[in-house]
């Protein structure tokens, strides 16, 4: 007797338990959401309340700052920065250091000034590795005044924008801790509920017993699995379905072996195609120049990076994203400088280089011959066709499966670019005579032959 009661008790307890959980589910979700939302909002908290307010007016109001800025960017920015040494010295506040007439002379023709033996001029010349500054005889004194007005703008207070970004990291870390705290608390509540439930059922049972309620025993049925085993037809159908399904998945599994679609390894330098090809619209061929003429697209050598990065030592604040801060990007540029052996402080190469070991993303097997120039130059295929929207990729990943089926499909459906290529002239003429066609696919040109890609 005692035994049966116990059993029933457990059964009913389970039931109750289940119901309880269900009813609690929305509530739970709500709690979850709330916990996370706090962290989400915390990141957006406006922290730059102190952000640069309009600073003191220019020291010398003798020029148009806006005109000066555009002139500066057009003529000076290649070699000068406002606050840091580039090829030439930093220019902020230069108007206060030297006599205005002297500056006119210097800008119009610095060499002459140096040749005349002017002490200041010679000193500057010596201090800057004896690099001759380009003469700008075309700039009028007004132009120069404008430029100087621009350079005399006081340095804006460092934006605190960087701070929240840095904080975000720590807050994220904090968020992680609070999450587990919340979860722990939830678990505790849950446990308490279970115990309460158990107690309540016990009490209820005791009351019921006291009131003389009798439980009816259920009729015994064949268990469902036994019924299933007894029905041979069902077993047969089920087995066939299972075998087919297993075959389907096994095939699918095997077919993806060696297919690395979506492969996005961590690179030694976090190079963002989004910033270069996307935001700054740099043509792919500028860096991957051999794609036009060689089988390899070529990973640019570091001297190509330095064509621009000699002058770009840091990213603009607006380049930073939530995920990657400005400091992060600047750190990556510093990695480039280290690899190429560029001493940014002294603006010269140290000669100590460390070639970058990039992780190769697109790996074709050795037995496949693929030629970039054939596709890029002859066929005029856009890089994005095979590499995806590369200009939006912060981290590059393999877009195409690079399987033979993928190659073949494209060769079957793409027409050969016959126009304006003298090579195809004769072939085109012969073909149109023979088949009466104007266009033909790569496959029809023999682009499916084994030997075209395997040798």
């Amino acid at each position: 007797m005692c035994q049966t009661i116990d059993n029933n008790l457990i059964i009913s307890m389970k039931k109750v338990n289940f119901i309880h959980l269900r009813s609690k589910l929305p509530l739970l979700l709500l709690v979850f959401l709330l916990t996370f939302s706090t962290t989400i909002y915390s990141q957006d908290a406006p922290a730059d309340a102190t952000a640069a307010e309009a600073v003191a007016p220019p020291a010398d109001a003798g020029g148009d700052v806006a005109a000066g800025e555009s002139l500066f960017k057009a003529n000076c920015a290649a070699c000068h920065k406002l606050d840091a040494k580039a090829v030439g010295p930093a220019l902020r506040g230069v108007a206060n250091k030297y006599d205005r007439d002297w500056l006119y002379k210097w800008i119009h023709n610095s060499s002459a000034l140096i040749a005349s033996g002017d002490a200041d001029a010679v000193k500057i010349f010596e201090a800057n590795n004896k690099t001759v500054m380009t003469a700008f005889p075309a700039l009028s004194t007004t132009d120069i005044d404008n430029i100087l007005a621009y350079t005399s703008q006081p340095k804006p207070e460092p934006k605190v924008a960087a701070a929240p970004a840095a904080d975000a990291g720590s807050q994220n870390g904090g968020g992680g801790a609070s999450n587990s705290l919340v979860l722990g608390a939830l678990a505790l509540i849950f446990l308490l509920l279970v115990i309460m439930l158990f107690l309540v059922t016990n009490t209820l049972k005791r009351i019921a017993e006291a009131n003389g309620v009798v439980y009816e025993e259920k009729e015994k049925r064949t268990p469902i699995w036994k019924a299933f085993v007894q029905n041979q037809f069902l077993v047969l159908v089920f087995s066939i379905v299972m075998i087919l399904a297993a075959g389907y998945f096994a095939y699918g599994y095997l077919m993806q072996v060696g297919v690395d679609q979506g492969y996005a390894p961590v690179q030694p330098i976090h190079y963002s195609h989004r910033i270069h090809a996307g935001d700054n619209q740099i043509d792919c061929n500028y860096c991957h120049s051999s794609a036009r003429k060689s089988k390899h697209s070529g990973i640019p050598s570091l001297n190509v990076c330095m064509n621009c990065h000699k002058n770009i030592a840091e990213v603009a604040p607006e380049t930073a994203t939530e995920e990657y801060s400005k400091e992060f990007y600047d750190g990556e540029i510093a990695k480039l400088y280290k690899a190429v052996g560029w001493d940014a402080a002294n603006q010269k190469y140290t000669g100590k280089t460390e070639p970058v070991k990039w992780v190769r993303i697109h790996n074709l097997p050795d037995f496949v011959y693929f030629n970039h120039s054939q596709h890029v130059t002859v066929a005029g295929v856009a890089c994005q066709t095979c590499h995806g929207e590369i200009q939006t990729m912060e981290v590059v990943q393999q877009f195409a499966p690079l399987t033979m089926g993928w190659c073949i499909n494209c060769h079957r459906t793409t027409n050969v670019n016959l126009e304006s290529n003298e090579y195809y002239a004769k072939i085109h003429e012969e073909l149109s005579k023979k088949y009466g066609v104007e266009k033909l696919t790569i496959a029809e040109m023999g682009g499916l032959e084994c030997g075209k890609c395997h040798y």
Partner: protein
Amino acid sequence: MASNKKYWKSVEELNEDSPIVKALQDNEFVTEIPTDEFLGNKEALESSSTTRRDFLKYVGFTTAAATLAACEGPVVKSIPYVVQPDEIVPGIANYYASTMADGFDFANILVKTREGRPIKIERNDLAVNGGSVNARVHASVLSLYDKNRLTGPMVDGAEVSWPEFDTAIAQKMNEMTGKDIVLLTQTFASPSTSKLISEFTSKYPNVRHVVYDTVSCSGALDAFQNKYGTRALPDYDFSKADVIVSVGADFLGDWQGGSYSKGYATGRIPKNGKISRHIQFEANLTLTGAKADKRVPATPSQQLEILKALTGGSASGLPENIADAVNKAKAQLQKAGGKALLVTSLPDVASQTLALNFNANSEAMDVNKPLLTRQGSNSEVTNMVNGVISGSIKGLITVGVNPIYSLPNNKEFAEAYKNLEMTLAFAMKQDETASMAKMVAATPHYLESWGDAQIKKGTYSLVQPTIRPLFNTRQFQDSLLQWTGNSQKYYDYIKENWTASILEGGSWNKTLEAGVLASNAEITMEEVKPVTEGTGVLEESTSNGALSALLQEGGYELTLYTSTGLGDGQQANNPWLQEFPDPITRASWDNYLTVSAADAEALDLVNEHVSNGALNGSYVNLKMGNVVLEKVPVIIQPGQAKGSVGLALGYGKTAAIQKEMQTGLNAYPLYQNFSSVQKVNIEKASGMHEFACVQLQSTMAGRSDDIIKETTLEIFNTKDKEFWNSVPVTDYDHNEISVRDKKADIWSPFDETVGPHFNLSIDLNACTGCGACVIACHAENNVPVVGKEEVRKFRDMHWLRIDRYYSAGETFKEEIETLENLPAFDSYKAVEVPAYENPQVAFQPVMCQHCNHAPCETVCPVAATSHGRQGQNQMAYNRCVGTRYCANNCPYKVRRFNWFLYNENDEFDYNMNNDLGRMVLNPDVVVRSRGVMEKCSMCIQKTQKTILDAKLQGRAIKDGEFHTACSSACETGAMVFGDVNDKDSEVLKLKNDDRMYHLLENVGTKPNVFYHMIVKNTSEA
């Protein structure tokens, strides 16, 4: 239904007494299966703790682990340049003009580099008199990546830095003041080096310069010097000669530096019904003899008589058949007048003078602009050797030569060399001499060096580096500059020298780009002339009695020669050259004594094929005075003159050479007096030598009409094409039709009218069998080296082979007649054994014939081999599962199977097994793996590149732009490659030529390779 058919395993079964037949009957497996290796040791098996179950567990686990591991792709790193050189675009080859001048081979070349690595040598088309780009020159790129090279300078066996080395030298040169030092060098033929050496010898007057040619041309040089005053070799233009008589001279091989095959081949292609007439008297069967219209076997002593008879003497002392041939040749020479040419390889001054005088009026000889590729003098070298041995010479500096290996009395010399006060060797490797020298200056390979050369007077060329020195080496000339107190680099020195005396105002950069310059500038090169006494004429005595040996009684007359593969032996550590089959004997990895069949019988020497077809041969001991060469393997050579034997120089090196490549025996001890003809005694030695000979069948067994067609000039000129070049016929509807008829096809044709359709033409009249194409194919297509044991099993991987056939009768025609008249039940032996006395010889390069109806394609179960519309039979290696059906179904036997993994496998420790050696691989061609079939691709990577270049530039392709590795390596113009859909192409003209035929045309494969039949000039008057 039972069949009575008997299937043959070997031709040996024809011979019922053969022990092999018995062996074949008794054993199912020809060679024993080596089960003992792992099951033989019972104790070890029993004591093993691994039970069968455990074993299966391990197998299961490892398989599972391997499967899982295989699913994870490897992480591949790409490392770009920090600063990319301007001229390098990854994936695009750069070509640099340069010159090879190693003292034996001189050639103007183009070096193909990829990402800064030289990977292939090609001919420089701008070079007119540019030496010969032969098989060794093609293979020299692999010698650059020799892992046994010296890595830095050494003093007393310890590696030192260059400044330390210079200090040691300066100190030594001070100590040596007043003492006799000899600077022993190869022939440089270099204006700048010659100038530099004279500066060096004037700073150190106790240094004397002696030039040492390992394989001497002293006799010819002496004769030329006597007559014309300069020490040089006359240049010959064989295309201008109507009658060519050679007495022993292998001018298509290495005779006097070679480089005559192009001119010769020009005169051998029928033009206006004319070709030159070539008569050859020789002892060994050479490439030249094989090409001759009439070849007469004659021993060296007979050759001496023949030469005398041809130049005015009488032929009465000679055997009747030779005397007859000599008289006819003499008449033809006289008739040809100024278009006659007589050349000889007899090493004495008198014989060379005879030939020189005879040719004095010949249009084909050029003495005004002679060749400067040999400078050595036997008497000077002998003086040097005597000086070292007697102790009068205290110091020896060797450059590019290895006297301890190559001097005839090398043992005695080595003893004396040890006691010299100063021994300095400039060497690329720790060779025999360098390993005994107290000071060793490591020199770079020529592909890492600057330099210049004047191969022929008035033709200058430059050597430029194509890669940074791989090791801490410094070239000889830079060392001399340093030691003469000149602060210049050798590059600046050459430039200055050229600007001053050679360029004549021309551009240095343009010359460097072209690599060659024809200039009228006369420059004085330091001439290392031997001292002439009294009359001022170099007599027989100065060449030290080159022929004295022949005067001895008894013995066999030995002719020492240089093999096509190894030459003088400088590149003995080059696996491509070691595995290169000799064009005549078809044996690789060996040198051997060639003996005539009659002499072999007398000496009881045999050659036999063992049951798997491999060749074995007897050993002999060679004795010459005190010199004994033991266990020299013997090859019975058809066409070898009775009473003569032949042996190749350049083998048997042991220092600084990989064990696998220490092949053959050093024959230099027999090279007494630097004379190529000697007398030796032969006695049989015990044992049998295992050869790696790649050709089992030596004759065409009367099928010459299907394989190598041949006719005479007379028939060619007078009869119809159908008579001498008939197309095979087949039955169709009870009528005979030509196999070229469309109705004869059982396959539907491919549409090959659009785009290019490639054909390769091979002119068998122009092919000299030199093998340059074989090595070029190796380099271009990453063909692996498999080693002697595998070659012996006919598993060589050569995509292109040059078959050599002997006629079973006197001529191929006689062989066909013998077959036709063979009684019904007679053995075919009559047509299967070559005529040993003097057979006719023919070469045929065979590669994949790229059949339009390819038998291999139809039997491949996985469609790994298929046909392209450009005419190429394509092979997708990654698809191949290795059934080898295709190889079995190929009538030409051109498919090669990868029995093993030949790269990164210690069992095949050749160039593909080390990082250095792999640098030579062509990145555009995949390296094949184990278990796949491979074959000639008709250089599809090259044709595709040509097409792509045209597409990129948006232009049509001109004739002559398409090349294969073999066609661009062919110096004689025997191979022409091109597009037959181009109506104006050279190859289409050749295809429509009357001499065109296909190999085994009757099988109906419609090959895209075609041959031009041989036409021989048999006119005796």
